[in-house]
């Protein structure tokens, strides 16, 4: 037998919806509608100025699957993510751990590590471009070496990943610091009484207890890393020999949609990226059961 909702429940229901309405409206107009429209566009060959779109069925998808440039871009993006995500998480975790202790000038350090997050990506890229310059750059001149950091096809994508790591370190660190606040002090006291050293405490107390935060950072960072665009756009141009080995999927999307006005094909590239990220995220959501501990 179905219980009839009390008037209090109904009023809560209505007010609940009213409260989330502004957010919902924003999401639908700015995110969900464009998402559906993008997927729709991927089945069309775009005409000029939004007129004369021509339905081509799965043709764009066939072309994407056979396009070597797209797979190369996917591989470039993956390489970037494989380096950027784990390294930035490990370093941020260690830093957060350190800066969670009572330390002189702790706030100063926290601020310094968070600073890159506040700077505009374009400015970050310009400074690093100069640091990396093989003839006149600071790095090569200080160490007196001759490495083509951003024009050697073999290492350019990793050089870019280093900038990515530097940029997100502060953000990851702040999230971890927040997670660390929730770990009760007495666990550590008990552990040190039992003779556990710093490393053992980190591995057996800290990491398991903040594993939900680590999981959150991991998932969001992978999503963000798969969407890398601005750093590459700023650092690498058509003249660069590393061009083909650094182009990311979003870069290709930009190239097709905005430089060559092939909006339909550009949309298809983004849908492919969406599929890849969805798969990666689903795998992580399943995998988390093995290592993430919720209280």
């Amino acid at each position, binding site marked *: 037998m179905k219980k009839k909702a009390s008037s209090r429940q109904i009023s809560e229901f209505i007010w609940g919806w009213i409260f989330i309405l502004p957010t919902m409206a924003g999401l639908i107009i*700015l*995110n*969900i509608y*464009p*998402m559906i429209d*993008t997927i729709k566009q991927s089945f069309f060959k775009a005409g*000029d*100025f939004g*007129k004369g779109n021509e339905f081509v069925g799965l043709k764009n998808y066939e072309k994407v699957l056979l396009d070597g440039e797209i797979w190369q871009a996917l591989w470039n993006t993956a390489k970037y993510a494989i380096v950027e995500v784990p390294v930035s998480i490990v370093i941020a975790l260690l830093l957060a751990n350190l800066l969670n202790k009572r330390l002189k000038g702790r706030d100063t350090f926290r601020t310094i590590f968070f600073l890159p997050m506040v700077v505009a*990506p*374009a*400015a970050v890229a*310009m400074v690093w*471009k100069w640091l*990396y*310059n*093989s*003839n*006149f750059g600071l790095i090569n001149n200080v160490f007196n070496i001759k490495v*083509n950091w*951003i*024009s*050697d096809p073999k290492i350019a994508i990793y050089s870019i990943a280093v900038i990515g790591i530097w940029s997100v370190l502060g953000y990851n660190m702040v999230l971890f610091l927040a997670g660390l606040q929730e770990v009760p002090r007495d666990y550590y006291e008990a552990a040190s009484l039992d003779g556990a050293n710093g490393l053992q405490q980190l591995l057996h107390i800290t990491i398991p207890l903040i594993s*939900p935060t680590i*999981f*959150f950072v991991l*998932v*969001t960072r992978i*999503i*963000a890393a798969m*969407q890398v*665009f*601005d750093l590459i*756009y*700023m650092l690498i*141009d*058509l*003249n*660069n*020999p*590393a*061009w*083909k080995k650094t182009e990311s999927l*979003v870069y290709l*999307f*930009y190239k097709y949609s*905005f*430089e*060559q*006005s092939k909006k339909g094909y550009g*949309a298809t590239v*983004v849908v492919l*990226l*969406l599929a890849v*990220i*969805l798969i990666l*995220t689903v795998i992580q*959501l399943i995998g988390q059961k093995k290592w993430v501990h*919720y*209280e």
Partner: protein
Amino acid sequence: MKKRVIAILLSALTAVSIVGCAGAGAAAPAADAGSAEAVEEEAEAAPAEEEAAPDSIGSSVEGELSITIWDEGQREGLQKIVDKWSEESGIKATIQVVDWNNYWTLLEAGATGGELPDVFWMHSNVAQKYMENDMLLDLTDRIASSDKIDMSNYYEGIVNLYQSDGKQYAVPKDIDTIALWYNKTIFDEMGVPYPDDTWTWEDFAENAKKLTNDEHWGYAIAPGNNQEGYYNTIYSMGGYVISDDKKTSGMDDPNSIKAVKLFTDMIAEGSCPDLATVSETAPNELLSAGKVAMSINGSWMLAGYRDNEYTAENCDVAVLPYTSSPDDRVSIYNGLGWAASANGKNTDAAWSLIEYLGSKEAQIEQAELGVTMSAYKGTSDSWVNSVSCFDLNGHMKMLDAKLVFRPYSRDTTVWEDMMIEKLQDAWTGDKPVEDVCKDIAEEMNAALAEE
């Protein structure tokens, strides 16, 4: 409970952030535009100051003319000319500047939504697309009945560029020329006489070698320097990039290959920096840093060189070399056009302004004020005196050289980008120039067939 909440939150976040892509892609270049080295190097020099990101291209409002351009450096001069027109016509007109990258994104959005400024600049990259879709006001009849505008007064290539189906959609505004910029200090140091109108391309290569030592190179060129590089030598040596009917590529023509080889040989010899160097530091930046003795640049670079203390002090400009006689001295040129919105609210006023801007009087003033050289033949002489630190005759005299319009087709960027990518192998010497050029011609023919 907490677990489920996080899981739901994450899935939502995934979906949302991805699609954010579509929006982010469009917004990202906007943020980068100011400090980015213009992807389109052939573009008019980007304004030095970063503008606040604009959110509209401007729209047509009754009773007042809106004008949109992308070069901050030209605003002041042009506004003076426009003000004179306002005095005559009694209609207020203001110029809005939107930087190069945003300009095209916003103009396209404006065209799609039917909101274009009354008067704006057109460029060879996209002109065909705008004309074919009737976005621009058809000026043919108005020009025919005008006593101020006669298309035969302007450089032919620019006039043709803004024609489609026998109709004229824009009035030529300006013209650019390519010339040889050089560093006087390095020339003095190495005891080489300054370049003049007697130089051949052979002399150029020979002298570049003499100007090279451990501190600096003779000359620098990147695969992207087409209008400011190999396009000039290709046409000077009798080759071509694209056939007149825009159906076939001329990159496999023996003369075209020879013209590209001139530069790749210089790289192999060491009188030009290698690909890695020019891909990290553009040739004009190398010139500004005193690292190369010569750089081939378009007249749109003038403002940048003038405002740079080092180049203003040490550099000057001369005409480009020729191949076998001064008659084959070539300058690849391009020019902007003044166009009006097809469905603006003030089309009559818009035409009146364009007519004024294209008139001999306004074209002379444009050159006098040092805005740019003008598209109206014979009105640019006073431009030479607009800057005191360089002898602008280098650029000016290129107007008397063989002027070849910048090669284009409907989708120029598709094959042009492909060409730049492929030329990298010729730059590094990984593949012989002949093979690279033949490969380019083949792909370019395929791209042209698709247009």
